[in-house]
């Protein structure tokens, strides 16, 4: 991968093993875009192009670059808007975040925004407050699903150990109870 940092460089270049080349717009240029576009671009490349590149090494490098764009450009720009006072911009940004928060594969991407929602729950603008609450619910739900997944793994291990006689019925029952409480 060529990381051309000098002024005026427009594209970031990735070289494939077969001699092919993939060029993606340089991160600096994306900084000038409308707020919702960087994430749309990242999603577009990830969903429509990444699998067509073939070379696994290049795919990994591009995946890293996309994460870099998300972390360094897309999210900070959202935060700037959320901390501002322009209601129209805030609603536009929150609407986009809400859409992403409903997708399991995307929710981690927008996680850094969570702490900036606190001030918006009680906003005078009802739409802002509604969107902020919806996003927060999505974060909570995703968090609970993650915990449940983790617990399910532990439960499966305990079951195997219990059936093999490696743990007592009491320990098994305790773990089972914790799991069921979380599931409810």
């Amino acid at each position: 991968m060529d990381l051309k940092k000098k002024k005026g460089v427009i594209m970031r270049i990735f070289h494939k093993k077969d001699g092919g080349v993939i060029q993606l717009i340089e991160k600096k240029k994306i900084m000038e875009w409308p707020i919702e576009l960087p994430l749309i671009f990242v999603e577009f490349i990830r969903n429509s192009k990444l699998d067509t590149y073939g070379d696994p090494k290049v795919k990994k490098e591009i995946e890293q670059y996309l994460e870099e764009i998300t972390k360094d450009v897309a999210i900070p720009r959202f935060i700037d808007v959320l901390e501002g006072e322009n209601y129209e911009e805030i609603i536009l940004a929150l609407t986009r975040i809400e859409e992403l928060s409903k997708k399991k594969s995307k929710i981690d991407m927008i996680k850094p925004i969570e702490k900036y929602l606190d001030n918006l729950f009680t906003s005078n603008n009802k739409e802002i407050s509604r969107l902020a609450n919806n996003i927060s619910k999505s974060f909570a739900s995703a968090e609970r699903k993650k915990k449940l997944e983790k617990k399910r793994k532990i439960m499966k291990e305990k079951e195997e150990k219990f059936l093999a006689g490696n743990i007592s019925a009491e320990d098994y029952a305790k773990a089972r109870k914790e799991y069921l409480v979380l599931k409810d």
Partner: protein
Amino acid sequence: MSKQKSKKEYDFKAAKELFEEYLEKGKKKTEIILPKDTVKINDLNRKEAINRIHNLTDELIRMILTTGKPSIQLPSRTSSNIIWDKKNDLLLLGKQIMEKHFHSLTSVVDITRLIKVLEIVYNLLTEDIHTSKRDVFYNDVKLFGKQDASDKCIEDVATMLYTTRNSTRVIANPRGGCVGRLRIRDKNDIIDLETLGSGTWPISPYLDQIEVLESDAEFILVIEKNAVMMRLTEDRFWRKYPCILLTAQGVGNVATRMFLKRINKELNLPTFTLVDSDPYGHYIHSVYLRGSKRLSYETPFLATPNIKLLGVLTKDLDEYNIPKIARLPMKPLDVKRAKDMLKEDFVKNNKKWEQDIKLALKDKVKAEIQALSTHGFKFITEEYLPKKLSTGDWI
């Protein structure tokens, strides 16, 4: 050559080598330094263009208040002021200045039209909108009389502001099309030029809203004729050979040339033209290569100086056994055009190009790109283009 399908596999070695060379050069890319005796033109954003108009009008007011005889100075666009920059291989505008006086009977109509166009441009910029040359004419038909007059004023306004026509927000009608391994942003939409069905993306004249996002192309092919473009599109030529195809249906208009320049420069891609084997085809290539004389003031924004003439060359007619019946005799106008081309310094300095035009004049023949179809409709995509791009047979 037979009409049977070719079984040959081409490696595009020559084109790939050129791409590697360009990528390497791109790392050390430096801005083109224009000769001192030529005019420097800038591509301006909205605010900068408005500022230039303010400065110009301030100067006019100053003249009115001090001398009472205002005038406008702008670089002359006559042929004597067009300079071929040998180093950068570009046609540029020299520093000869012409002056238009408000109080002269000979230039009063001219200056009234010019100021009218300046006013239109100012309104377009302040309202942040674009318009076409035709709309400018209809803005005051009585004043302009014919569209030629308003078109000339549009170019004069761009020249006197030392900027490109696109920066004045007067745009050309869309005529070009593009398809292939390229993803762009058009305002807030992402457009994938590989997924356009059987069509092409009409090259937008709103180039200030276009941005290159992603590409895995390895070369660009500019095609003179839409019919040939359709043939290549139907074969999905870019799928087998990673490329971007582009056509302007004849001589490249401003939007097409500017867009080509942009993708060539930003992606460092080798770029080739495929034109008819006749003097007009050579002329079309020359306009992409070093600009037109009429728009020489904005050549640095329109010309693609590293573009190669891939074909159809006169020598190809024998090398690819194009039957005599598919060749056409040159008309007197073709002969004149070919002779005029031979007088151009940029042809004289390119021996392969000069030889090919001389060969056409000797044989007095020409041929359309479609003459290649005498070997079958897929000959162009499966044999001619792959072979030429693999062997480096271009000018």
